[in-house]
């Protein structure tokens, strides 16, 4: 089997395990577990997802990512420039800072 086919089989197996099987699980939960699933776990997942993204970007290029994300936060929440414009400005700043640092 070629490397490409090994990779394809590994990824389809992973998709079955982490996306397809959990989507077909049909379990009746108690009220306590319902609370966990509908209110608490979503909160945990998003908190962890945000931290994951921050860690991922900061570990690549710390200062350019930190400065760009801070400016992006200002663009979105303070200046209300909208998601697309803020993302374009933030990304341009990020790539400029990386080029500048090199």
């Amino acid at each position, binding site marked *: 089997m070629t490397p490409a086919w*090994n990779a394809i089989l590994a*990824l389809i197996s992973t*998709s079955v395990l982490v996306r*397809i099987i959990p989507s077909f699980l049909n379990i009746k939960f108690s009220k306590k577990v319902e*609370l966990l699933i509908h209110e608490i776990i979503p909160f945990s997942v*998003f908190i*962890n*997802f945000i931290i994951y993204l921050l860690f*991922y970007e900061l570990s690549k290029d710390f200062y350019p990512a930190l400065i760009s994300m801070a400016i992006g936060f200002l663009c979105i929440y303070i200046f209300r420039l909208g998601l697309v414009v803020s993302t374009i400005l933030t990304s341009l700043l990020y790539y400029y800072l990386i080029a500048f640092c090199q």
Partner: protein
Amino acid sequence: MLTRTVPALLAIIPISMLFGVLSAKADWSILEVFLISFLGFTGSGQFAVLPLAESGLGIMSLFIITASINSRYFPMAILSANRLHKNFFIRLISSHTLGDEAFVIENKRDSSADILIIRLIIFITWVLSSIAGALLVDHVPAHWISSNLNLGFPASIILLYLSFMQLSQVSKHFYLLELSVIIISVGISVVSIITFGVIYFWIPSVIFTSFFIYYWKKI
């Protein structure tokens, strides 16, 4: 719905094209690029397996690595399961096409049809962009690829924004907005990443954070 989806599409197109270019550089055929994006459909997982598969790593090792990287989909899939269509094949398609972008774009008011459309738009864009990248490989300047430019940054910005939006929706009703709970939850997540690493922290961190909030609420 399209308004919510378009920014994510603009962010994933260059990433997926880059994957197509890199896989074509590794002598993968167009069919193989299509199949890995279609059957695998996972940004980080695809980028991770490309060099590992080329280095001769076996299928079991590849599976363990990709399952670890993509373990974040497990809680996401469970959370969105009851919003998916009841029909077997539609549910199958909806579940396979779950991705980070779709998960942060969808909300509780979306119908199963809305969810399917959001996921399919992102999925099809991803697959077509990777094929386009593979087809354009000869036209991409070599220094663009060798410079290790982080093309994923715009996507991270959009995912961060959408995650904050979702977080505020999830927590707007009640106690969860309390600053102390958020700070301790962030602390648990950071400690988990430092302890288990960025690939393996997902499941333990989600469990620890959830139990902390659950017991905090009981108190």
